[in-house]
């Protein structure tokens, strides 16, 4: 009787294993056919590989004592001043989160102990990347995968920035009362980031009002311009950033925008940032008509296209009533000394300093998405 049971058990196990192998083969066939036929995925993968090759390999440490495998963040995250290091960290973070296989023995962990300074754009991109990985998971046990257990070892002010901006909340960290690491930053006050897929005026208004409450001067007209600029950025993301043929790699393709704001008391400057992980502004500008003539004249770089879109607005829809949004985004910094609008998209970095003063430069690799920053100086 016992032998028969063992025999039946083994038979059952063999059957289960065979069925599992068959299923794995079917899945592999399906994914290989999906990837072969999916040119958008191939393009996205190529772009990601370019970014990884351009940047340094991420510093990954195996820490057997704490059963962690850790990606170490560099000292400075600044898209303008340290583009290679910053882009490298984000590319490695995407690889670490989405492509590195999970193991039961080690928990994936991002170590921010080295981080000393972070610019506002990087803060939002980091929030967006972690939000894509953790923010939409419903189960708390998954949220804690990147739980920052060593916040007390972080540089002063970083934990506070992360907490106020909503990044610590994503990782599942619950601050305790009297937590020394969370002491306020001497001059920066971040406003929690917002995320959505639609044009939500109320969210744009929240950001504007929250910053306005911190600001020395309350300028209602400027508030209206900023509200308009933010909602136009949302509309652009909704209409153009994620075309049907677009695929994100690595990670899922969601049609989100992320928006945040920070007030800097030392310079009396309000910073508003909007980010999407879409196809990028230069790719949405049609290569016909006015843009075609630019391509023919040799000025077909991404920065030239974005610059032209800011000064002579046109839309990818080709319809004449569209394409005014970008110009309206720029109006928020017109007649405001010391203020600027910066657009980083594709390989373009275009800075508009109001009243048609534009400077631009070309990046060596594509940024991946579109990052827009308004820096509004309160001083006269």
């Amino acid at each position: 009787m016992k032998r028969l049971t063992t025999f039946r058990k083994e038979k059952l196990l063999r059957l289960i294993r065979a069925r599992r192998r068959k299923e794995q083969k079917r899945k592999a066939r399906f994914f290989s056919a999906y990837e072969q036929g999916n040119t958008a995925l191939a393009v996205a993968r190529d772009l990601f590989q370019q970014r990884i090759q351009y940047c340094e390999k991420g510093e990954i440490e195996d820490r057997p004592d704490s059963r962690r495998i850790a990606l170490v963040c560099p000292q400075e995250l600044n898209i303008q001043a340290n583009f290679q290091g910053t882009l490298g960290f984000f590319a490695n973070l995407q690889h670490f989160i989405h492509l590195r296989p999970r193991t039961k023995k080690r928990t994936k962990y991002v170590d921010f102990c080295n981080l000393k300074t972070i610019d506002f754009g990087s803060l939002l991109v980091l929030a967006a990347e972690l939000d894509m990985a953790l923010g939409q998971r419903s189960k708390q046990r998954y949220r804690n995968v990147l739980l920052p257990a060593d916040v007390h070892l972080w540089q002063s002010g970083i934990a506070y920035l992360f907490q106020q901006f909503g990044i610590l909340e994503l990782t599942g960290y619950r601050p305790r009362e009297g937590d020394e690491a969370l002491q306020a930053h001497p001059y920066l006050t971040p406003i929690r980031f917002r995320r959505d897929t639609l044009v939500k005026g109320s969210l744009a208004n929240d950001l504007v009002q929250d910053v306005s409450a911190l600001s020395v001067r309350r300028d209602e007209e400027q508030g209206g311009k900023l509200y308009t600029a933010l909602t136009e950025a949302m509309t652009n993301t909704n209409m153009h950033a994620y075309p049907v043929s677009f695929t994100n790699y690595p990670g899922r393709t969601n049609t989100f925008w992320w928006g945040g704001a920070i007030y800097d008391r030392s310079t009396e400057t309000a910073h508003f940032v909007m980010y999407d992980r879409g196809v990028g502004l230069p790719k949405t500008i049609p290569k016909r008509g006015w843009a075609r003539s630019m391509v023919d004249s040799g000025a077909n770089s991404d920065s030239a296209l974005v610059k032209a879109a800011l000064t002579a607005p046109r839309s990818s829809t080709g319809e004449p009533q569209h394409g005014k949004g970008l110009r309206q985004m720029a109006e928020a910094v017109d007649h405001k000394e010391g203020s600027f609008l910066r657009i980083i998209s594709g390989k373009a970095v275009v800075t508009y300093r109001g009243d048609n003063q534009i400077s631009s430069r070309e990046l060596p690799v594509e940024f991946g998405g579109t990052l827009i920053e308004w820096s509004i100086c309160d001083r006269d």
Partner: protein
Amino acid sequence: MDIEISVAEDFSPFPGGRNPKHGEFNGESFRQKYLEQPLRDNKTLLIIFDGVAGLPSSFIEEAFGGLVREGLLRTYTDYKEKFKIVAESPAVTNAPNMIERYIKDALKRKR
């Protein structure tokens, strides 16, 4: 004026986007809900923008430029006769200029 519409109170203080795909308080919905029927009935409208957080161009263009594309405004005089715009709060003072510009642009394109 026959009909008075406060955008902030009757529609939303936070308008944005061109059509319903973009969000709830878009220009197309505003036009269809508040502007088209009164114009068909040959009524005059007083539109109050005070209390609105700002004026996104996509919203304004779709709401008013859309009236030209729908054939409800045929000339600039039509607009002047049928609409009165009130926008006194600092966030929306440019509303009358914006609307006039988009209506003129739409009329030019229609010709």
